[in-house]
C-alpha cells in the first residue's frame, strides 16, 4: 500500500476509485491516466442537458480537478496507455514513457459500436460518447442552414435522448430504428409505444423496421439511404448502435475476457494485482444470479468502491440492485432492477397518461420496474428489490394499494 496505484481511464469509475482508495488506507501514489483531455465528467448529461446547452463543461465535471488535491491523486490527461507488462508490473504510455505499479485498476469503459456502413467516414457523421463528440455535433449544427436536419440511427435510450435534446434546439429530427420497435432490447412494448407517442407529439419522426444501407454525400453528409429505397436529408447523422467494452489492453496482457474484462465479485481480474470496474468489466452479480456487464453510472461507482477495497486487501460485496434513468422532454424514467429474463409484465396506473409504471416478473419474482414520472414507485420498487419482497400481481395493478405497506 506504499507503491503506485495506477488507474487507467478517467471517468465515473476512476472518480470514485481514487477517493475510496484513500478511505481504505492506500498510502502510495495514485495516478489516473485518461486519454480524454478533461477531468472526469458526468457522461449522462451529454445526451441531455449538455447537448441542449443547459449545462456547461464546468458544470459537467464530477468535481473540479483541484478537488483531487485533497486526496493527493495525480492526473495524466490526454494520454493513452498502450500496453501493460504484467511480469515487470509496468505500463507504457503512447509517448513511450513507462510507469511501474504495485496495483493497477482498469477503468477503461466502453466505446460506441462502429457500424460498417458506406459513408460513415463523411464529415457530419457522429457517434455520441464524449464531450468532443457533442462539441462537434453542435459545431456542425451551427454551420447548417436553419432549421437543421438530424438523422439518428438507432432508437435506444441515447438515441432518443439525443432526439429530444435536438428537438428542443429546433432541429428537425428523424430516428431510424432497424427493429420493430424502439427500445426493443431493453423494455416491454408498452414503454416503447409510450416513447414513440411522446416523440411523435413533440414532432420527432420515428421510423421503425427501417434498416439503413448507406450514408450519402460528397465531402459532407447530405442524406441517409434506407433499405426500402427512401432517403432522408441530413446535416448531421448520429449513430447510436450500442457500445462495446474497451478490453483490448487487458486482452493483450493475457487477462481473462468474458463479455468484458472478467472479474470476480470483488472486482479482481485473473491477475491478483489488477482490478477492473465499470463498463469495461463483467462480474457475477449475486442478486441477478449470473455474470453480467452493466452499463450505468451507479454500477461504475459501486464497483469502483469494491475494487478500491480489494486493492487494500478487503472484501466488500457489491450488493445493490442495478438502476438507471433517462430524461426526455418532461418525462423522467427511472428503472429499478434488471429485467433480463422476464416472463410477465404488469402495468400500474394508466399507460395513456404521463405517469405510470411497468413491473417485470419472472414467475413470482420481481425483477425490475420502469417508472415513468413516478419517483415514489421507483423508490418503492428499489426497496422491494433490496429486501427481496415480491408484490403480488393484484397489489401491483391496484393503484389504491400502497406498496409501502409491504415494506414495513
Amino acid at each position, binding site marked *: 500500500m506504499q507503491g503506485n496505484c495506477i488507474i487507467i481511464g478517467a471517468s465515473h469509475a476512476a472518480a470514485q476509485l481514487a*477517493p475510496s482508495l*484513500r*478511505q481504505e488506507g492506500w498510502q502510495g501514489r495514485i495516478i489516473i491516466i485518461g486519454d480524454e483531455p478533461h477531468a472526469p465528467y*458526468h457522461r*449522462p*448529461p451529454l445526451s*441531455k442537458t449538455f447537448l441542449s446547452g443547459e449545462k456547461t463543461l464546468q458544470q459537467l465535471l*464530477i*468535481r*473540479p480537478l483541484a*478537488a483531487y488535491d*485533497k*486526496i493527493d491523486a495525480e492526473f495524466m490527461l490526454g494520454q493513452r496507455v498502450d500496453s501493460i507488462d504484467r511480469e515487470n508490473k509496468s505500463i507504457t504510455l503512447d509517448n513511450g514513457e513507462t510507469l511501474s505499479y504495485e496495483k493497477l485498476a482498469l477503468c477503461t469503459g466502453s466505446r460506441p459500436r462502429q457500424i460498417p456502413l458506406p459513408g460513415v467516414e463523411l464529415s457530419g457523421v457522429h457517434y455520441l460518447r464524449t464531450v468532443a463528440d457533442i462539441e462537434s455535433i453542435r459545431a456542425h449544427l451551427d454551420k447548417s442552414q436553419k432549421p437543421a436536419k438530424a438523422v439518428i440511427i438507432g432508437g435506444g435510450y441515447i438515441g432518443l435522448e439525443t432526439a429530444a435534446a435536438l428537438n428542443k434546439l429546433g432541429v428537425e429530427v428523424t430516428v431510424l430504428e432497424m427493429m420493430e420497435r424502439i427500445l426493443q432490447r431493453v423494455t416491454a412494448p408498452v414503454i416503447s409505444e409510450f416513447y414513440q407517442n411522446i416523440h411523435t407529439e413533440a414532432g420527432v419522426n420515428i421510423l421503425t423496421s427501417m434498416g439503413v444501407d448507406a450514408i450519402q454525400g460528397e465531402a459532407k453528409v447530405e442524406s441517409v439511404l434506407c433499405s426500402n429505397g427512401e432517403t432522408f436529408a441530413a446535416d448531421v447523422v448520429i449513430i447510436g448502435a450500442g457500445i462495446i467494452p474497451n478490453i483490448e489492453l487487458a486482452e493483450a496482457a493475457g487477462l481473462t475476457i468474458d463479455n468484458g474484462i472478467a472479474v470476480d465479485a470483488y472486482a479482481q481480474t485473473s491477475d491478483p494485482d489488477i482490478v477492473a470496474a465499470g463498463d469495461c468489466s463483467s462480474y457475477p452479480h449475486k442478486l441477478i444470479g449470473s455474470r453480467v456487464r452493466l452499463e450505468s*453510472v*451507479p454500477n461504475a*461507482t459501486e464497483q469502483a468502491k469494491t475494487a478500491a477495497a480489494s486493492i487494500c486487501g478487503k472484501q466488500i460485496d457489491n450488493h*445493490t440492485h442495478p*438502476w438507471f*434513468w433517462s*430524461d426526455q422532454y418532461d418525462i*423522467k424514467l*427511472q428503472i429499478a432492477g434488471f429485467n433480463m429474463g422476464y416472463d410477465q409484465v404488469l402495468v400500474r396506473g394508466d399507460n395513456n397518461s404521463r405517469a405510470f409504471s411497468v413491473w417485470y416478473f419472472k414467475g413470482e419474482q420481481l425483477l425490475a420496474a420502469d417508472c415513468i414520472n*413516478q*419517483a*415514489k414507485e421507483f*423508490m*418503492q420498487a428499489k*426497496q422491494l428489490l*433490496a429486501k427481496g419482497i415480491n408484490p403480488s400481481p393484484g397489489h401491483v395493478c391496484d393503484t389504491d394499494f400502497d406498496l*409501502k405497506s409491504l415494506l414495513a
Partner: protein
Amino acid sequence: MPLINYVDASGNQFEAEVEVGSNVMQGAVDNMIDGILAECGGACACATCHCYVDEAWQDKVPAVESAEQDLLEAVVDPKDNSRLSCQLVVTEEMDGMVVHLPASQY
C-alpha cells in the same frame, strides 16, 4: 464563499466552502465527504444525496418541488426536515448552515 457544515450520523463534523450557485451535494462531493452518494450527479433521479437541514436553517432553503417531494417520501428514515442536497442551491444566506447526514442512503 459560504461555509457549509456537514454532520454525519456519528456526530463527526466536516466544513466545506461551497460557491454561491453550486449546491450542498456538490460541496460534499468536492470535499469527498462520505455519506452523500449522489449517484445521479444532481439530476434529481436517485435520492442518494438525502440530508436533514438543521432546524435553525429551515427558512434559508428553497421550497421542495414535486419531483423532490416524491423521492423524499420514500427515502430511508424521512423526517420533516429531509431534503435532497443536490436541490439546495447555495446562497450567501446559507453561510454557516448545518446539514445532518443520514446513517445510510439505502
